[in-house]
């Protein structure tokens, strides 16, 4: 396929792997932040090809995985109200919370719609003025602009029946939290190229400087990933620690100003809970006071039940790169994509699901 095959060319991949191995005088530990990158690394077997030169650990960049159980429980509570039509991305339906998952809520009679874009929720709100359409808005900097535009459209259309249950999260604060952790093993980051298409690379300079860690903006195809890895280990070998963009064909250094403007008009940074990582300051987005009327939590006075423990699931360690999916006693036994105990087994971008899917390890 044009614009894709050239980034998956096997001969080029093997040459890049050789170049990376020739660069490394020791084995380096890198974290790819984004779940899409984790998925591609496992799908194309880059972890195996590079095994003796680079250890790739998988970051918290799967939005489904880091969504707190509390938010899912709030969503389940919403589906119990007959006037509510809950809209969200398909992956969210199987993530377990204290009250079960949204699939079960749907089977119990709640109305849960799978959508592909937050703008679908605006269309539903227009078609169903008699219903309260609630958008469960999750995702990183990449999906926040569409949620913001949904709010702006609803405002322009005078729709009073579109509400948001917001659980958007921001990547740089999570990277800082990982690096500040005394158990941190990360020596270099592959930053998520898609996030930078919106945000640009500016947010990373302070992190690279403060923690003396190279951060390479990296794409999602094997050739892109290997280019990012190569640049990262070259910096490490030289003792450099700077921000480098190896995905400039898609991610301009200054990002997308229009998307950022929409986000900052509607949302503001707030403290939020990350599943497995705890509460991180200014790591999430909340509706600004002038858009508070779109807030589903306030409208319905949602109080989630007390959170449940994670049992044997080590999702928290996996999400911080401190453990591999295969270290978990439940992996592939009690915890499978059909019976997930933790979110990383649910999402197609979760590290546990990727291990089971592509390596078939149990």
């Amino acid at each position, binding site marked *: *396929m044009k614009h894709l095959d050239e980034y998956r060319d096997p001969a080029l991949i093997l040459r890049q792997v050789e170049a990376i191995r020739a660069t490394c005088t020791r084995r380096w530990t890198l974290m790819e932040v984004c779940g899409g990158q984790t998925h591609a690394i496992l799908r194309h*077997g880059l972890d*195996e090809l590079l095994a003796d030169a680079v250890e790739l650990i998988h970051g918290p960049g799967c*939005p489904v995985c880091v969504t707190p159980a509390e938010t899912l429980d709030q969503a389940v509570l919403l589906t119990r109200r007959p006037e509510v039509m809950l809209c969200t*991305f*398909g992956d969210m339906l*199987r993530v377990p919370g204290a009250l079960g998952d949204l699939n079960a809520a749907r089977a119990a009679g709640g109305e849960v719609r799978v959508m592909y874009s937050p703008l679908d929720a605006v269309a539903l709100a227009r078609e169903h003025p008699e219903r309260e359409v609630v958008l469960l808005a999750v995702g990183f900097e990449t999906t926040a602009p569409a949620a913001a535009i949904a709010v702006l459209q609803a405002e322009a259309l005078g729709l009073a029946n579109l509400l948001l249950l917001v659980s958007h999260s921001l990547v740089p604060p999570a990277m800082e939290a990982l690096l500040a952790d005394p158990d941190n093993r990360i020596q270099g980051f592959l930053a998520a190229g898609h996030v930078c298409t919106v945000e640009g690379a500016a947010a990373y300079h302070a992190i690279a400087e403060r923690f003396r860690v190279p951060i390479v903006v990296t794409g999602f195809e094997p050739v892109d990933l290997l280019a990012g890895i190569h640049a990262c280990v070259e910096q490490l070998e030289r003792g450099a620690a700077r921000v480098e963009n190896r995905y400039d064909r898609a991610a301009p250094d200054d990002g997308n100003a229009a998307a950022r403007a929409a986000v900052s008009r509607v949302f503001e940074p707030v403290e939020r809970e990350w599943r497995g990582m705890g509460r991180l300051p200014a790591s999430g987005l909340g509706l600004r006071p002038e858009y508070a009327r779109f807030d589903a939590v306030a409208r319905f006075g949602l109080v989630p039940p007390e959170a449940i423990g994670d049992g044997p699931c080590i999702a928290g360690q996996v999400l911080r790169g401190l453990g591999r999916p295969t270290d978990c006693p439940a992996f592939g036994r009690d915890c499978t994509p*059909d019976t997930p105990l933790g979110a990383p087994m649910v999402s197609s*971008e979760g590290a546990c699901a990727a291990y089971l*899917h592509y390596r078939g390890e149990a």
Partner: protein
Amino acid sequence: MTTDVVRLTHGGGGRMQAKLLDEVILPALGARALGAADAAVLDAPGGRLAMTTDSFVVRPLFFPGGDIGRLAVHGTINDLAMAGARPLWLTLGLILEEGLPLDDLRRVLASVQAAAEECGVRVVAGDTKVVETGHGDGVYINTSGVGAVREGTRIDPAAIRPGDVLLASGDLGRHGVAILAAREHLGLEPAIPSDSASVAEAVAALLEAGVPVHALRDPTRGGAVAALQELSDASGCRLVLDDAAIPVREDVHGACEILGLDPLHSACEGRFLAAVPADYADRALSVLRSVPVAAGAVAIGRAEPGEAVVIRRLATGVERRVILPAGEQLPRIC
């Protein structure tokens, strides 16, 4: 008909039902197809028979490349073909939702009739029920089929041996993506057409050419992966796919990349997979390619000794296990 939509009274067994049958259903299926008797009485050929049944609940009813009527015929015919049988007869059970436009029903029936005629099968018995609005999705169809198994044919996945070559009769994953795109109004241009078709002719050609086929599977729900895993489990063989050889249309590939889906998990409705001894692989391919529905036939992999798993061997030499999807394919979210 005086009304233009299906009413509950059309299923009540009274005059309205008789009118629906006489004026809409029977004429569409050919006057001689269905008698008034409670059961069709048929002259059976000698030898073994294959029988199958399948229900069709696809939404939307009409989609690029086909509709529920064609699908209901092709699906059952293909199941018979996978047993090495020549399809002969079908039954047609219609469950209609009150309010269905009669024009839609006529279109579906015309498709059933056209597909049956193209495939040389007869619809020999049928049934019609009507359910209240909201209790159906326009039309549900059940078709059962009977076919005659060729003398000496033994199709059995347990017969797959290490060394056997795996063939695909054409591009994979198209129907599932076509339906998803139509249902979710993804607006792909041009629309991806379903591959809905009968593969009976291609299977017949293979068997008539004397290829000792070990196994046949049509990769419907669960896609090629589900079909291959069944073959692997039944034979105890490790099935290794050559990633670069897997045939996927460019538009299907593109849609799957956008949606985060794997074409090997997506259903086909006009394709089959075959396992044949390596010595017969070239002959099988040239026979298949001479039949239009299998013109795109290629070898996609091989059975090897080892545990019963399905493996995708990438061009870089890395082997990745292929596993069944959890249930429904879910789009990824960023």
